[in-house]
């Protein structure tokens, strides 16, 4: 197990290094830089060229790309994420709270969606090919087929405007306690949950159907063990195993991938911060967020591995 964790760690470091380099150079080839995009057309129309050049030099934007790259890597090695280019603020300060909020949103979503997805998958797997299964899989596919922003806007129209029982947009602050923030975000959570249930339900259903066809299920059936017991005690843990890695990747992608939901509901998460950082060309913030997202992938994968190890004794050595 420890060897596995070490191995994963080493691989992840390689991935992270590639990722950091990719983002650095990818953002470098884009037209303009942080200063340019911080100025409006009106301002550029009036700003003399020499003033522009002086400001670039002040911000270090005129240094050769490799020099900046090494500087950035050096900073990373000493756990310094750097500072924003324009405001010279520590990047860690900008990223920390939105990251917390996104992890919380992903966590709550998963926590609420998993049991529902599980129940749906079990209902469907128990009656494979019959009306209930068809209805549930159909609903899952439909849930999977509707763009998130449509779901979100519809939820707002129904539950905030026509029948105002929930807030339409989140007015809580980035650094409010999580309880306050999440309480202000019922529709945002509902939107991510709807998509998650559809996705997780599909994966779990397939896993469960597969396991229900396994030899050990047949043996138990032929021993006269009741069906509920077979499903709960024998099949379910086995079905969770292949689903776990997929669920972990999904959870990791939720952290940085709910950009649309964050935008629609103004949830103060890392996805919206990322969009802002990209459009403002704040390379260091983009880097930090991408790193955080990558670390989430690594961590969730590790959690999945641990979960699999707990469920599947064959992987423990």
């Amino acid at each position: 197990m420890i060897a596995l964790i070490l191995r994963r760690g080493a691989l992840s470091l390689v991935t992270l290094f590639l990722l950091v380099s990719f983002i650095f150079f990818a953002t470098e080839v884009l037209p303009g830089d942080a200063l340019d995009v911080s100025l409006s057309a009106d301002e550029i129309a009036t700003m003399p060229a020499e003033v522009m050049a002086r400001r670039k030099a002040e911000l270090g934007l005129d240094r050769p790309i490799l020099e900046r790259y090494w500087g950035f890597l050096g900073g990373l090695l000493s756990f310094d994420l750097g500072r924003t280019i324009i405001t010279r603020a520590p990047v860690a300060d900008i990223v920390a709270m939105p990251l917390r909020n996104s992890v919380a949103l992903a966590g709550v979503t998963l926590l609420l969606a998993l049991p529902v997805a599980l129940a749906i998958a079990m209902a469907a797997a128990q009656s494979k090919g019959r009306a209930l299964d068809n209805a549930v899989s159909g609903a899952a596919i439909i849930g999977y087929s509707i763009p998130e922003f449509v779901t979100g806007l519809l939820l707002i129209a129904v539950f905030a405007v026509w029948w105002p029982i929930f807030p339409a947009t989140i007015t809580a602050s980035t650094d409010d306690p999580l309880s306050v923030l999440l309480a202000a975000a019922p529709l945002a959570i509902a939107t991510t949950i709807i998509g998650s249930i559809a996705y997780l339900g599909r994966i779990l259903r397939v896993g469960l159907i597969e396991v229900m066809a396994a030899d050990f299920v047949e043996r138990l059936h032929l021993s006269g063990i009741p069906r509920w017991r077979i499903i709960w005690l024998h099949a379910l843990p086995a079905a969770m195993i292949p689903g776990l890695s997929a669920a972990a990747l999904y959870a990791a992608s939720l952290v940085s991938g709910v950009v649309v939901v964050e935008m629609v509901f103004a949830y103060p998460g890392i996805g919206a911060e990322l969009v802002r950082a990209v459009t403002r060309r704040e390379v260091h913030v983009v880097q930090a967020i991408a790193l955080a997202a990558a670390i989430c992938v690594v961590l969730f994968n590790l959690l999945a591995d641990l979960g699999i190890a707990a469920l599947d004794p064959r992987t423990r050595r």
Partner: protein
Amino acid sequence: MRAALRRPAALLGGLLVVLHLAVAIAAPWIAPFAPTSLLDAPLEPPGATYWLGTDDLGRDAFSRLLWGGRVAMLVAFAAGAVAVLGGALLGLAAAYRRGAFDDVVMRLVEMKLAVPTILFVAIFVTGFGQSVPVLIVAVGIIQMMGVVRTARAAGIVLMEQGYVRAAQLNGESGAIIILRELLPNVADLLAVEFALRASSALLLVSALSFLGLGISPPTPDWGLMVEDGMALLESEPALVLAPALCIATLVLGMNLAAEGLADALGLDAARGGGG
């Protein structure tokens, strides 16, 4: 294929996709007006001339609806094809070569998982512009990495097959083995992958359009119509609901078709759709 069509859900899915495709292809001939012409006063109610009324620039909403799937479908299907072809070749090559090449490919796949999709597209679009070919490549690469994993897993199994080993023992080149021996045997898998990738690409494109990174005006596009129409949702709901319904039925059709195809081929569509 025939077995897939015997399932009612898959049949419905296939019909939806074929219908949408047919309309998209035939749009220039069957649409009563050009989709971009400013014909009349804005927001005319539905009537004999304009079946769905006019939009807020005075264009025929019905004609725009008929045209509205063309580019999105082009991007989705082309990106699906890029993803499936590229992903299959890369995945099979990784399965064939293993070793360092495999390691590099798998790191790339992992990297893609770690880079948020939006960031990836934003960098791509900012660098190369927001044109249809750029979108196809960007969305194709995003979808490709999942295919790489699937194709590699299938390839590793195939590499153990006698006919691959026989070819290796005869000293056949890697390209021959990948193209002759491996690729034809993952065709079923790739057909399902294609349907899944195309539907997921369509969703992604609509999300990107929503964020302003996807298809851009003056292209008539359902996603843009939904986004545009949201401001008028209360007074002109049809301008939002009609294109939204089109997107939903098309994606639904592709998903149902993928599921049915996978079911018929004994594959696992849900897990293929992840990653």
